[in-house]
């Protein structure tokens, strides 16, 4: 499994566990809009940011942790990778 695939799997698992109700049959994929579709709102986005910072040992500046950057698992990976260097 590539690094990207591992990140996709880990972040997707977190998003589903953290934001999707157990009885909800909503399917979330790596390109599913999270913020603009209302699955994740800007208020509860904070736990996702904390998760990413802890898991990948990075600091995501507030001005980069925007609803746009957090809108899909793929866009989140792009942001994380930028800070992984």
């Amino acid at each position, binding site marked *: 499994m590539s690094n990207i695939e591992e990140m996709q799997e880990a972040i997707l698992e977190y998003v589903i566990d953290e934001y999707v109700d157990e009885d909800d049959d909503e399917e979330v994929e790596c390109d599913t809009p999270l913020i603009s579709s*209302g699955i994740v709102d800007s*208020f*509860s986005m904070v736990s996702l940011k904390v998760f990413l910072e802890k898991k990948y040992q990075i600091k995501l500046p507030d001005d980069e942790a925007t609803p746009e950057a957090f809108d899909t698992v793929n866009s989140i990976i792009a942001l994380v990778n930028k800070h992984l260097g």
Partner: protein
Amino acid sequence: MAYSSKTRDLFAADIEEIKGKGLYKEKRFICSPQDASILVEYPEGAEKKQVLNFCANNYLGLSSHPDVVEAAHEGLRERGYGMSSVRFICGTQDIHRTLQDKVSKFLGMEETLLFPSCMDANAGVFEAVLGPEDVIIADRLIHASLVDGIRLCSAEYDTFKHMNMKHLRKKLELHQDKRTRMIVTDGVFSMDGDLMPLDEVCALADEFDAMVLVDDSHASGFIGKTGRGVHEHFGVMDKVDLITTTFGKGLGGASGGCVSGRAELVELCRQKARPYLFSNSMAPAIVNATIKVIDLVSASTERRDTLEWNAQYFREQIVAAGLQVGGHGTPIVPVMLYNAKLANDMASDMYAEGIYVIGFFFPVVPAGAARIRVQLSAAHTKEHIDKAVAAFAKIGEKYGIIGLDKKGIIAKYGM
């Protein structure tokens, strides 16, 4: 001129963008006192129309109650029009103290501090009490004013899935390393009309050493056997540490709010909460009228009993008419339509039928969860409710949604 045509165009474009997204709020004018039946000018300039009001927070029907109006007159006569001061300089009268004491007694709390509104109470309470060593753990659907207050505070914050105790437990476990934990929730969620199970929340708070703050704005005066609020309903009046609430809804409907709770926490608000320190005192007329309201709701449960009956009757009738509703046990009954345009169109048609209700859709509620929110009042009569149900049945028939479940409505109109 600093406000050039270029600047004007910039802001005009912002307004057009709001309109383009279908989020523009039209002007609506009420040309009578607030009540179950009101005279409305809508849209602006249209002929005034007498309609039944099913979208006010006038839960107990006290907004225009003669005793409350008279108490406001008395306050005006005896203590003047305005205070021209914040509370801590020269803006506190004896009646402010009286109201605080009466609210403490009514809610079963140690101390109370008045704020100009509950929005202000929520904006100030967190920053006054908590610091960077602490964590706030909030339900995801809390009111916008709590969200704003939490964001203004230096404490870390986290959220849990709406009314999901398993998820709350997980978050409490996660944050055991913090100095203090504060669970934050609405008592009644204003868009969904559901009650937070505070007995379960308080049990978790005990287990994980957390404080509990409840915004009971849509509950104070009528939820619970004697109307004290959601903490009374779930038998945890001694377990909730802070309540924020408003006098702008069930409790008279004018304005003003408060933080009520543990003495030290309320005292910290009095010392440090910025909306308390830097905003004017509640006006004497409103303070005196609110004292009368607290006396009325303390003396009799008649109004909250009527409200409870009205809410239950409406809920039963609307379900029997074949419509989908959400929530339980509150006077807020969302008629679920899922599709934003459908909610908007049906609300307009209801207005034409003489029933004033509003459609709500994303971002006010989650995408695909559009609804018409119906709010019952003790001022409604059975006939008022029958008319509203008949109008919903007629308009529901027009749109072909009678008897359809969620999947059926979404299949017909999309999300």
